[in-house]
């Protein structure tokens, strides 16, 4: 039952280059004509609220509701930031959306800016996306030239400028308040909330931060209406499609746009071609590196916000990483903790100290030097991080450990008992301290 593509549709057409001309030919920049000067800004927010659109950046917060938190009568500037920092291991959809069809997102940003009364908007793009940044700059130049950006857009009197800002290589700068700090020219460290960006955001002004994919949906909601959008996916809580990023031991890794609500089984086996080498599936991460692991018993969980949450994980950023039988779960957890330890910004104690401690324990277990007490220590430390940190990174870093401990405890015990990794043939290399990693 292949569904109509929305966000990936243009770029799937042969010969589509993502240029302004191509985008316009495909019906682009029609939505802003319907909105600017035609609809009161409040109505646009309302429309987005009613569509049920939820954030695609990770937390899944209802987009229209977020916009409505911007104080109505605030004097002075307010800002929109497009979060294009996409750095979560296993997530690579924003990159494709930006590089292959940049105007779709830019048009979304114009709509959002209009709705919340923004004069200056930023795209905070991951530093490594050099090509993406170039493409965006080119697309913005085209849009300025065509009169879609800058002063008096389409003669409506509405004005907005968009700037591209490249990050400098920290995963944490995808966290919205760290992003704002970084954009202000400071060290990218998350802020303590409250206050939230809606009231005290960029330069302490009301600010909305939205993900690339979230914004890219806006022109279609405007063009085709709330009813159309609401009918896609698993309404009322999970409307629209998601671009899922499939990776791991599967036949056809890549980005797939599907309506929310299909099952992981359909996704992995029907759409992504099934397991590489046809080995049985052992585990998968359903929503990016920050999400708890699922196992083969979760294949029939539906890919929507509620269902995944109910089953104990989260849809997160849409990265699905699949692991086949024979994959060591301790190693998988260690691998992720290596990432989290490397990327913990270090601002708050439980995450800063916890990530390196947890990694060292996992490393020891994986490398045949574990002790049985270590399992207890892991299980004890993780909840001491959860909910006690400045940002959600702390909750993310413990997800792989707690979920693998839950579903694969025996594997951990085997590592400790046998003082080796049962899945590894070569002897373990010497341990390196986490120290100056």
């Amino acid at each position: 039952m292949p569904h109509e593509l929305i966000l990936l549709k243009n770029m799937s057409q042969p010969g589509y280059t993502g240029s302004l001309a191509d985008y316009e030919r495909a019906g682009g920049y029609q939505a802003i004509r319907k909105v600017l000067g035609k609809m009161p800004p409040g109505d646009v927010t309302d429309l987005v609220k009613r569509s049920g659109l939820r954030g695609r950046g990770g937390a899944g917060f209802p987009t229209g509701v977020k916009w409505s938190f911007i104080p109505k009568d605030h004097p002075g500037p307010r800002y929109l930031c497009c979060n294009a920092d996409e750095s979560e291991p296993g997530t690579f959809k924003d990159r494709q959306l930006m590089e292959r069809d940049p105007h779709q997102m830019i048009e979304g940003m114009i709509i959002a800016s209009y709705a919340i009364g923004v004069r200056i908007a930023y795209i905070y793009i991951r530093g490594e996306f050099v090509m993406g940044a170039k493409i965006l700059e080119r697309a913005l130049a085209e849009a300025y030239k065509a009169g879609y950006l800058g002063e008096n857009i389409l003669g409506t009197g509405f004005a907005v400028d968009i700037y591209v800002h490249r990050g400098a290589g920290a995963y944490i700068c995808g966290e919205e308040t760290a992003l704002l700090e970084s954009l202000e020219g400071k060290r990218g460290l998350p802020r303590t909330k409250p206050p939230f960006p809606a009231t005290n955001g960029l330069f302490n002004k009301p600010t909305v931060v939205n993900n690339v994919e979230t914004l890219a949906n806006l022109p279609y909601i405007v063009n085709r209406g709330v009813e159309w959008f609401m009918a896609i996916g698993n309404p009322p809580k999970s409307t629209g499609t998601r671009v899922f990023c499939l990776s791991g031991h599967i036949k056809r890794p890549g980005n797939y746009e599907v309506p929310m609500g299909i099952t992981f089984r359909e996704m992995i086996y029907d759409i992504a071609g099934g397991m590489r080498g046809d080995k049985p599936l052992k585990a998968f991460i359903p929503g990016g590196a920050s999400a708890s692991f699922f196992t083969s018993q979760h294949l029939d969980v539906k890919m929507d916000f509620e269902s995944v949450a109910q089953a104990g994980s989260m849809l997160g950023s849409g990265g699905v990483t699949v692991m086949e039988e024979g994959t060591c779960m301790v190693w998988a957890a260690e691998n992720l903790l290596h990432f989290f330890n490397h990327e913990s910004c270090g601002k708050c104690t439980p995450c800063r100290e916890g990530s390196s401690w947890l990694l060292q324990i996992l490393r020891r277990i994986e490398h045949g030097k574990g002790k049985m007490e270590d399992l207890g220590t892991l299980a004890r430390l993780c909840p001491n991080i959860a909910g006690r940190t400045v940002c959600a990174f702390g909750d993310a870093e413990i997800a792989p450990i707690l979920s693998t401990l839950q579903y694969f405890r025996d594997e951990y015990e085997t590592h400790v008992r046998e003082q080796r990794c049962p899945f590894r043939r070569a002897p373990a290399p010497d341990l390196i301290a986490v120290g100056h990693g």
Partner: protein
Amino acid sequence: MADMVNILVDGTPIAVEKGTLVIEAARRLGIMIPHFCYHPKIKPDANCRMCLVEVEKMPKLQTSCSTLVAEGMAVRTNTAVVEEAHKSVLEFILANHPLDCPICDQGGRCDLQDFSHRYTPTKSDFLDVKRVFQKEYFSPLIDKEMNRCVQCLRCVRYCDEVIDAKALAPIGRGSRTEISHFTSHQLDCEFCGGCVQICPVGAFTNRLSDYEFRPWMMKRADTVCGYCGDGCTITLQSREDELIEVISSFEKGRNSGDLCARGYFGYQFVNHPDRLTMPLVRQPDGRFEPTTWEDVLPLLAERFTQVKLAYGSEAVGGLITSRGTNEDLYVFQKFMRLAIGSNHLDSAARFGHVNAVEAMRRVQGTNRWTVSYEDIVNADCLLLIGTQITWTNPIAGLKVKEAVKKHGAKLLTIEAMQPSIETTSNIANLSTTHLTVEVGRHPAAVHGLLKAVFDEGVADNHLAATASGYVDRTRAAVSALPYPEGMDEATLRTIARTFAGSRRGVILIGQDLLQSPGGYEASVNLMDLLLLLGKLSEKGWGLAPLTEENNEQGAIEMGATADYFPGAASLDDAAARTRIASAWKESPPVGAGMRMLDMLEAARSGKLKAMLIVGENPARTLPASAKPAEALGRLEFLVVQELFLTETAKLAHVVLPASSYAEKSGSFTNSEGCVQKVRAGLEPLGGSRPDWEILSAVSVLMGYPLEYGDAAEILKEIRAVIPGYRVLGATPEPARVDRPAMDRYVGGGFAEDMASRYRATSNITQDSSYPWSLWVGQSLFHSGKLSTMAKGLLEIQKEGRLYMNPADLQRMQLAEGEMVTLTSVAGEARVPVGALGRIPRGILFFPESFKEAIAGLLTMTPDAVTGVPYHKQQRVAVHKT
């Protein structure tokens, strides 16, 4: 009453102001919530997670340091969950902590130690390798041990938010996060020591005292810093009569725990090996011979008496530093007036502060500020004129920074240094409106401001109606002046308009104005400005002259200047004379007193035969061209009380070893007029004695016994004689404008010197033979003569450099440290050059604490009214040879 909010903390109700943090509300109930990153001085950052508490109806634990109270909130700080959270955060912190408490200077006063003791079991589950930062050299004064750091960022935030130096930053991520500096080799900053003080653990320590002590072995004494007039409360920590360190508690003092480099790192002159410990008497062959007090005291009494008998009391003069205690100063002037019988006495307040006091006395009838530090902090507009505040009065500077950075006050600066971003803070960088004015031209800028007041039409209408004569004549005088050459009219107008339009404004003036020609008149004119705006007697408004030395205000109020009796009463004030005579049971001498320069002139001409000099060093302080040493050399009898064998002491017949501020008790009066207790932290070094004790002993032998059992007895007498000394304390009620005096001024007093006060100042002098303007001033790291004896301060600044704008340096093709020759009409000097972006082009700056290097260059002009010797600027030529 501010909005109050009712909350429950562990079941106990308390009402606190809206906007209070939960951690503070709990503290008020005596409940201490453990914390590392929170500090009342800086904005909450909530990074350590140590202060977690339960808040009813909130699912997660909340950080009490960043959570504001809300009506009906119920907070729990002692449940099992909360205790568990505290334990757990500590467990995380300790995982990587080296636990080197036995060799850590913080051991015994460390928050981590204390909380660990309270919350954690002795066993740790951490079995892995601790993170190790390689030890690296950080700075000459501050040691850094990053393995102990708990990454609370207090140091970074303090340096940025409070000091505005922004010298520190965290680098690296995660558990590899360490605190570092920006400069390439070593920390280069203001060295205020604040980061060391605010660090909750031993990650930053004072290198001057590294490994020297265990905190609990030290003797402590709360006293007041002896450097500048800001009057910071400090705690001397000593062991076996050696001063080990100086600290300041955050809850205490006018400085609320903040210090500057001089206060924090400048204490080692106290135990300097060159300190004088025995009286010295010059022998016929010119050598000094050490002797005992028993021998020297009768000698002093005898020689003073001889001079008096031979030439009369008028042949003896006295000069005292204003670094002494009020008790020293008071006994000094009483000794001079009664035991000697001479009004010829003066103090270092003559170098500038008398200008401000004379102006205040004249216009508003007070000898003090009518505002306090609190008024500075709460002002919504501050006007700084010639203060160089961060360098001269760093803590008053912090009050200004607090007003601007925390409360959004407007800052107007008419200063000699221009905005520029460097490794130390620069007040001009915070300005709303700034005007760079060469030293010596601040009085002209004040003219410009007054002109702008009329041109902008912001003068007070009420005053124009009630005192039309005053207003009209001032307007006429001011209007006749052009806007000063080289100063932007629009900027002056903006400053005048902004200041006039504010709710509460304070004008701060400092050395650059008060120690330059026109300093007295400009001070009077600034009070004209306040009068014309209708603000002089309004609450929260006023003029705040900053003092360079710690007790200049006290020196004047104790009567230790030629112009005033105790209480800063004129010598011809009959009522004051009667009051003093009845307290002293003897009448002070009649006749005018000679001021400092007059005395030197009299010594040169042979009129003055003997001098008593206490802690002053005119032979060095005054320019060589004034030939002070020659004048002093003519005296038949010169007695010098000193800590060190200074240039002046070397000329003396008798040198007496004096005790430093750390070794004596008494009181200091700071710039704002706050009288604070000085407590001895050490026994007097060797045979040294407090100045008042020496004079008291001599007086007895001279038959005019000024006997006091201790400093407290002197203070008792001071209180009886001097109004304003009845209250000792940290928050003085500032003086009020004296209405009759103000009315006298407005009613005609102003007219006496109208013409000279509003005389057009000379335009910028262009002298092609001496194209540069050299300005000698105080630097951040040194003040006066003692700081150059303090090892710590010498570590940061060991020599005088001639600072110039980097562009000038480049134009002259000079490298930093290269020697140049300076010439002036008076002479020449050779000094190394340095670059400093805040020095405007065409200007040279030289730190006065090293001025012996340029003594030959300077000339001096005395103030016609107040006799202040001006010698801080000079036109010079720079030669690259």
